[in-house]
Protein backbone atom coordinates (compact mmCIF):
# COMPACT_ATOMS: atom_id res chain seq x y z
CA UNK A 1 0.00 0.00 0.00
CA UNK A 2 2.76 2.42 0.96
CA UNK A 3 4.59 1.30 -2.17
CA UNK A 4 1.82 2.52 -4.47
CA UNK A 5 1.74 5.81 -2.60
CA UNK A 6 5.46 6.47 -3.11
CA UNK A 7 5.23 5.29 -6.69
CA UNK A 8 2.42 7.79 -7.27
CA UNK A 9 4.42 10.64 -5.79
CA UNK A 10 7.51 9.69 -7.78
CA UNK A 11 5.44 9.74 -10.93
CA UNK A 12 4.07 13.22 -10.26
CA UNK A 13 7.54 14.66 -9.63
CA UNK A 14 9.98 12.12 -11.02
CA UNK A 15 13.16 14.13 -10.55
CA UNK A 16 12.21 15.48 -7.09
CA UNK A 17 12.48 19.06 -8.25
CA UNK A 18 9.73 20.49 -6.07
CA UNK A 19 10.28 18.72 -2.78
CA UNK A 20 13.25 18.12 -0.53
CA UNK A 21 13.06 14.38 0.10
CA UNK A 22 14.56 12.63 3.03
CA UNK A 23 17.91 11.15 2.02
CA UNK A 24 17.24 7.50 1.24
CA UNK A 25 20.73 6.30 2.22
CA UNK A 26 23.15 4.23 0.18
CA UNK A 27 21.77 2.23 -2.70
CA UNK A 28 21.16 -1.48 -2.23
CA UNK A 29 23.91 -3.98 -2.91
CA UNK A 30 22.06 -5.20 -5.99
CA UNK A 31 22.12 -1.72 -7.54
CA UNK A 32 25.77 -1.06 -6.60
CA UNK A 33 26.94 -4.42 -7.97
CA UNK A 34 24.98 -4.22 -11.20
CA UNK A 35 25.97 -0.59 -11.73
CA UNK A 36 29.64 -1.36 -11.23
CA UNK A 37 29.38 -4.23 -13.68
CA UNK A 38 27.56 -1.94 -16.14
CA UNK A 39 30.51 0.49 -15.99
CA UNK A 40 32.90 -2.44 -16.61
CA UNK A 41 30.80 -3.52 -19.60
CA UNK A 42 30.97 -0.02 -21.04
CA UNK A 43 34.76 -0.04 -20.69
CA UNK A 44 34.72 -3.43 -22.44
CA UNK A 45 32.70 -1.85 -25.25
CA UNK A 46 35.28 0.96 -25.43
CA UNK A 47 37.99 -1.71 -25.81
CA UNK A 48 36.01 -3.33 -28.63
CA UNK A 49 35.63 0.07 -30.28
CA UNK A 50 39.45 0.17 -30.62
CA UNK A 51 39.35 -3.17 -32.46
CA UNK A 52 36.52 -1.85 -34.63
CA UNK A 53 38.54 1.28 -35.41
CA UNK A 54 41.57 -0.85 -36.33
CA UNK A 55 39.40 -3.03 -38.58
CA UNK A 56 37.85 0.02 -40.26
CA UNK A 57 41.31 1.42 -41.03
CA UNK A 58 42.89 -1.88 -42.11
CA UNK A 59 40.00 -3.57 -43.95
CA UNK A 60 41.43 -2.58 -47.33
CA UNK A 61 45.07 -3.50 -46.54
CA UNK A 62 45.03 -7.02 -47.91
CA UNK A 63 48.71 -7.15 -49.02
CA UNK A 64 47.78 -9.25 -52.03
CA UNK A 65 45.85 -11.67 -49.84
CA UNK A 66 42.12 -12.36 -49.93
CA UNK A 67 39.55 -9.59 -49.66
CA UNK A 68 36.64 -9.80 -47.25
CA UNK A 69 34.17 -10.64 -50.00
CA UNK A 70 36.29 -13.69 -50.95
CA UNK A 71 36.38 -15.33 -47.50
CA UNK A 72 33.11 -14.41 -45.77
CA UNK A 73 30.22 -16.86 -45.96
CA UNK A 74 27.02 -15.02 -45.20
CA UNK A 75 25.00 -18.19 -44.56
CA UNK A 76 27.23 -19.12 -41.62
CA UNK A 77 27.13 -15.57 -40.27
CA UNK A 78 23.33 -15.55 -40.44
CA UNK A 79 23.16 -18.81 -38.44
CA UNK A 80 25.62 -17.42 -35.88
CA UNK A 81 23.56 -14.24 -35.57
CA UNK A 82 20.29 -16.11 -35.04
CA UNK A 83 21.98 -18.38 -32.46
CA UNK A 84 23.26 -15.44 -30.44
CA UNK A 85 19.97 -13.57 -30.69
CA UNK A 86 17.94 -16.57 -29.53
CA UNK A 87 20.46 -17.16 -26.72
CA UNK A 88 19.92 -13.57 -25.58
CA UNK A 89 16.19 -14.32 -25.45
CA UNK A 90 16.62 -17.58 -23.50
CA UNK A 91 19.01 -15.79 -21.14
CA UNK A 92 16.25 -13.24 -20.50
CA UNK A 93 13.83 -16.10 -19.76
CA UNK A 94 16.38 -17.56 -17.32
CA UNK A 95 16.69 -14.19 -15.52
CA UNK A 96 12.91 -13.98 -15.14
CA UNK A 97 12.87 -17.57 -13.82
CA UNK A 98 15.63 -16.65 -11.34
CA UNK A 99 13.62 -13.64 -10.14
CA UNK A 100 10.54 -15.78 -9.46
CA UNK A 101 12.78 -18.60 -8.13
CA UNK A 102 11.60 -21.24 -10.55
CA UNK A 103 14.40 -23.80 -10.80
CA UNK A 104 13.00 -25.75 -13.73
CA UNK A 105 12.66 -22.78 -16.10
CA UNK A 106 15.97 -21.35 -14.86
CA UNK A 107 17.87 -24.54 -15.74
CA UNK A 108 15.99 -24.88 -19.03
CA UNK A 109 16.68 -21.26 -20.03
CA UNK A 110 20.35 -21.47 -19.06
CA UNK A 111 20.82 -24.83 -20.80
CA UNK A 112 19.28 -23.45 -24.00
CA UNK A 113 21.54 -20.38 -23.74
CA UNK A 114 24.55 -22.67 -23.28
CA UNK A 115 23.69 -24.86 -26.28
CA UNK A 116 23.10 -21.85 -28.55
CA UNK A 117 26.36 -20.27 -27.37
CA UNK A 118 28.25 -23.50 -28.08
CA UNK A 119 26.74 -23.75 -31.58
CA UNK A 120 27.90 -20.18 -32.19
CA UNK A 121 31.41 -21.00 -30.97
CA UNK A 122 31.58 -24.19 -33.04
CA UNK A 123 30.65 -22.35 -36.26
CA UNK A 124 33.14 -19.58 -35.53
CA UNK A 125 35.93 -22.04 -34.68
CA UNK A 126 35.28 -23.97 -37.90
CA UNK A 127 35.43 -20.72 -39.89
CA UNK A 128 38.75 -19.76 -38.29
CA UNK A 129 40.25 -23.24 -38.72
CA UNK A 130 39.15 -23.27 -42.36
CA UNK A 131 40.76 -19.87 -43.03
CA UNK A 132 44.03 -20.87 -41.35
CA UNK A 133 44.09 -24.15 -43.29
CA UNK A 134 43.78 -22.22 -46.54
CA UNK A 135 46.81 -20.10 -45.56
CA UNK A 136 44.69 -17.07 -44.65
CA UNK A 137 45.79 -16.92 -41.01
CA UNK A 138 46.11 -13.70 -39.00
CA UNK A 139 49.69 -13.17 -40.20
CA UNK A 140 48.70 -13.14 -43.90
CA UNK A 141 47.72 -9.45 -44.09
CA UNK A 142 46.83 -6.47 -41.92
CA UNK A 143 43.19 -6.99 -42.86
CA UNK A 144 43.24 -10.57 -41.59
CA UNK A 145 45.06 -9.52 -38.40
CA UNK A 146 42.34 -6.99 -37.66
CA UNK A 147 39.63 -9.52 -38.57
CA UNK A 148 40.98 -12.30 -36.36
CA UNK A 149 41.63 -10.02 -33.39
CA UNK A 150 38.18 -8.39 -33.47
CA UNK A 151 36.09 -11.51 -34.13
CA UNK A 152 38.41 -13.68 -31.99
CA UNK A 153 38.15 -11.25 -29.06
CA UNK A 154 34.37 -11.48 -29.26
CA UNK A 155 34.62 -15.27 -29.45
CA UNK A 156 36.83 -15.32 -26.33
CA UNK A 157 34.21 -13.26 -24.52
CA UNK A 158 31.50 -15.73 -25.55
CA UNK A 159 33.68 -18.64 -24.33
CA UNK A 160 34.14 -16.90 -20.98
CA UNK A 161 30.38 -16.27 -20.91
CA UNK A 162 29.63 -19.98 -21.41
CA UNK A 163 31.95 -20.87 -18.52
CA UNK A 164 30.29 -18.24 -16.35
CA UNK A 165 26.88 -19.59 -17.36
CA UNK A 166 27.77 -23.11 -16.24
CA UNK A 167 29.13 -21.66 -12.98
CA UNK A 168 25.81 -19.90 -12.39
CA UNK A 169 23.87 -23.14 -12.96
CA UNK A 170 26.16 -24.92 -10.49
CA UNK A 171 25.79 -22.14 -7.92
CA UNK A 172 22.00 -22.18 -8.14
CA UNK A 173 22.13 -25.98 -7.86
CA UNK A 174 24.38 -25.87 -4.77
CA UNK A 175 23.27 -22.67 -3.03
CA UNK A 176 19.79 -21.92 -4.37
CA UNK A 177 18.52 -18.47 -5.27
CA UNK A 178 20.46 -16.59 -2.60
CA UNK A 179 20.76 -12.80 -2.88
CA UNK A 180 24.47 -12.98 -3.80
CA UNK A 181 23.80 -15.66 -6.43
CA UNK A 182 21.03 -13.49 -7.90
CA UNK A 183 23.44 -10.53 -8.04
CA UNK A 184 25.90 -12.65 -10.03
CA UNK A 185 23.01 -13.72 -12.25
CA UNK A 186 22.03 -10.14 -13.12
CA UNK A 187 25.68 -9.40 -13.96
CA UNK A 188 25.83 -12.48 -16.17
CA UNK A 189 22.64 -11.45 -17.98
CA UNK A 190 24.08 -7.97 -18.58
CA UNK A 191 27.30 -9.53 -19.90
CA UNK A 192 25.50 -11.89 -22.26
CA UNK A 193 23.18 -9.19 -23.66
CA UNK A 194 26.15 -6.83 -24.11
CA UNK A 195 27.98 -9.53 -26.10
CA UNK A 196 24.98 -9.71 -28.40
CA UNK A 197 25.10 -5.92 -28.88
CA UNK A 198 28.78 -6.18 -29.85
CA UNK A 199 27.95 -9.01 -32.26
CA UNK A 200 25.43 -6.70 -33.98
CA UNK A 201 28.37 -4.39 -34.67
CA UNK A 202 30.55 -7.31 -35.78
CA UNK A 203 28.16 -8.80 -38.31
CA UNK A 204 27.18 -5.37 -39.66
CA UNK A 205 30.65 -3.85 -39.92
CA UNK A 206 32.91 -6.87 -40.45
CA UNK A 207 30.81 -9.31 -42.45
CA UNK A 208 28.17 -7.23 -44.27
CA UNK A 209 30.10 -3.99 -44.85
CA UNK A 210 33.36 -5.95 -45.26
CA UNK A 211 31.86 -8.02 -48.08
CA UNK A 212 31.37 -4.86 -50.08
CA UNK A 213 35.04 -3.87 -49.85
Amino acid at each position, binding site marked *: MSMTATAGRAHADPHHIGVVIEHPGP*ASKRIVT*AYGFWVFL*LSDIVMFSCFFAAYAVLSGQTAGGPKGSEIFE*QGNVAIETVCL*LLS*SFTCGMASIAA*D*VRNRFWFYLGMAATCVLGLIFLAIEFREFADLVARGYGPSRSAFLTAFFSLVGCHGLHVSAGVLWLLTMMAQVFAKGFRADVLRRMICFALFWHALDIIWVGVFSVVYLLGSGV
Partner: protein
Amino acid sequence: MSDQTHMHAEHDLAPGDEEQHSVGVRILGYVVGLVLALLLTATSFFIAGTDLVWQPSIPVALIVLAIAQMGVHLVFFLHITTGPDNTNNVLALAFGLLVVFLVVGGTVWIMAHLNANMPPMDQIMRMQ
Protein backbone atom coordinates in the same frame (compact mmCIF):
# COMPACT_ATOMS: atom_id res chain seq x y z
CA MET B 1 7.93 -9.80 -6.80
CA SER B 2 9.95 -9.97 -3.62
CA ASP B 3 11.49 -6.87 -2.10
CA GLN B 4 14.89 -8.52 -2.11
CA THR B 5 15.30 -8.42 -5.85
CA HIS B 6 13.45 -5.25 -6.80
CA MET B 7 13.69 -1.76 -5.42
CA HIS B 8 10.64 0.41 -5.13
CA ALA B 9 10.18 3.48 -7.24
CA GLU B 10 11.88 5.95 -4.93
CA HIS B 11 15.24 4.25 -5.58
CA ASP B 12 17.21 3.84 -8.75
CA LEU B 13 16.95 0.66 -10.76
CA ALA B 14 19.96 -1.58 -11.25
CA PRO B 15 20.97 -1.85 -14.91
CA GLY B 16 19.21 -4.90 -16.29
CA ASP B 17 16.38 -4.69 -13.75
CA GLU B 18 12.87 -3.83 -14.79
CA GLU B 19 10.19 -1.94 -12.98
CA GLN B 20 7.76 -4.25 -11.28
CA HIS B 21 5.75 -6.15 -13.84
CA SER B 22 4.03 -9.49 -13.88
CA VAL B 23 5.94 -12.39 -15.42
CA GLY B 24 3.67 -12.34 -18.48
CA VAL B 25 4.42 -8.68 -19.22
CA ARG B 26 8.16 -9.27 -18.77
CA ILE B 27 8.15 -12.25 -21.15
CA LEU B 28 6.15 -10.20 -23.66
CA GLY B 29 8.86 -7.51 -23.50
CA TYR B 30 11.53 -10.05 -24.43
CA VAL B 31 9.34 -11.48 -27.24
CA VAL B 32 8.80 -8.00 -28.71
CA GLY B 33 12.55 -7.34 -28.51
CA LEU B 34 13.35 -10.67 -30.16
CA VAL B 35 10.89 -10.07 -33.03
CA LEU B 36 12.17 -6.53 -33.65
CA ALA B 37 15.80 -7.67 -33.54
CA LEU B 38 15.09 -10.56 -35.94
CA LEU B 39 13.33 -8.17 -38.35
CA LEU B 40 16.24 -5.70 -38.26
CA THR B 41 18.78 -8.53 -38.71
CA ALA B 42 16.87 -9.95 -41.66
CA THR B 43 16.68 -6.48 -43.23
CA SER B 44 20.44 -6.02 -42.78
CA PHE B 45 21.28 -9.32 -44.48
CA PHE B 46 18.75 -8.61 -47.25
CA ILE B 47 20.02 -5.06 -47.89
CA ALA B 48 23.66 -6.21 -47.99
CA GLY B 49 23.06 -8.61 -50.86
CA THR B 50 20.35 -6.92 -52.90
CA ASP B 51 20.46 -5.00 -56.17
CA LEU B 52 17.09 -3.40 -55.49
CA VAL B 53 18.44 -0.31 -53.75
CA TRP B 54 20.89 2.37 -54.84
CA GLN B 55 24.26 0.77 -54.14
CA PRO B 56 26.07 3.71 -52.41
CA SER B 57 23.26 3.86 -49.85
CA ILE B 58 23.94 0.32 -48.61
CA PRO B 59 26.77 1.11 -46.11
CA VAL B 60 24.73 3.92 -44.55
CA ALA B 61 21.65 1.69 -44.39
CA LEU B 62 23.65 -1.09 -42.70
CA ILE B 63 25.03 1.29 -40.07
CA VAL B 64 21.59 2.79 -39.38
CA LEU B 65 20.06 -0.71 -39.07
CA ALA B 66 22.89 -1.79 -36.71
CA ILE B 67 22.40 1.25 -34.47
CA ALA B 68 18.63 0.65 -34.45
CA GLN B 69 19.16 -2.98 -33.44
CA MET B 70 21.57 -1.98 -30.67
CA GLY B 71 18.84 0.37 -29.42
CA VAL B 72 16.31 -2.48 -29.45
CA HIS B 73 18.71 -4.66 -27.43
CA LEU B 74 19.35 -1.87 -24.91
CA VAL B 75 15.65 -1.19 -24.36
CA PHE B 76 14.12 -4.68 -24.45
CA PHE B 77 16.97 -6.88 -23.16
CA LEU B 78 19.02 -4.58 -20.93
CA HIS B 79 15.99 -2.48 -19.85
CA ILE B 80 17.82 0.82 -20.15
CA THR B 81 15.00 3.36 -20.26
CA THR B 82 14.59 7.12 -20.06
CA GLY B 83 12.81 6.83 -16.70
CA PRO B 84 14.06 8.79 -13.68
CA ASP B 85 15.11 5.55 -11.95
CA ASN B 86 17.54 4.90 -14.84
CA THR B 87 19.36 8.26 -14.96
CA ASN B 88 22.68 6.91 -13.67
CA ASN B 89 22.64 3.98 -16.09
CA VAL B 90 21.89 6.26 -19.05
CA LEU B 91 24.62 8.73 -18.03
CA ALA B 92 27.21 5.94 -17.83
CA LEU B 93 26.05 4.72 -21.24
CA ALA B 94 26.29 8.24 -22.66
CA PHE B 95 29.87 8.59 -21.43
CA GLY B 96 30.77 5.19 -22.90
CA LEU B 97 29.25 6.18 -26.23
CA LEU B 98 31.19 9.47 -26.19
CA VAL B 99 34.48 7.57 -25.85
CA VAL B 100 33.42 5.05 -28.52
CA PHE B 101 32.62 7.80 -31.02
CA LEU B 102 35.85 9.67 -30.22
CA VAL B 103 37.92 6.51 -30.73
CA VAL B 104 36.20 5.21 -33.87
CA GLY B 105 35.39 8.56 -35.47
CA GLY B 106 38.77 10.06 -34.64
CA THR B 107 40.68 7.04 -35.92
CA VAL B 108 38.78 6.82 -39.19
CA TRP B 109 39.01 10.58 -39.72
CA ILE B 110 42.75 10.88 -39.04
CA MET B 111 43.75 7.73 -40.92
CA ALA B 112 41.69 8.73 -43.98
CA HIS B 113 43.46 12.11 -44.07
CA LEU B 114 46.86 10.47 -43.60
CA ASN B 115 46.08 8.19 -46.52
CA ALA B 116 45.00 11.13 -48.66
CA ASN B 117 48.01 13.30 -47.76
CA MET B 118 50.76 10.71 -48.00
CA PRO B 119 52.18 9.24 -51.19
CA PRO B 120 52.03 5.46 -51.45
CA MET B 121 54.73 3.57 -49.58
CA ASP B 122 56.72 2.54 -52.66
CA GLN B 123 57.12 6.21 -53.67
CA ILE B 124 58.47 7.05 -50.20
CA MET B 125 60.95 4.19 -50.52
CA ARG B 126 62.13 5.51 -53.88
CA MET B 127 62.61 9.03 -52.46
CA GLN B 128 65.14 7.78 -49.92
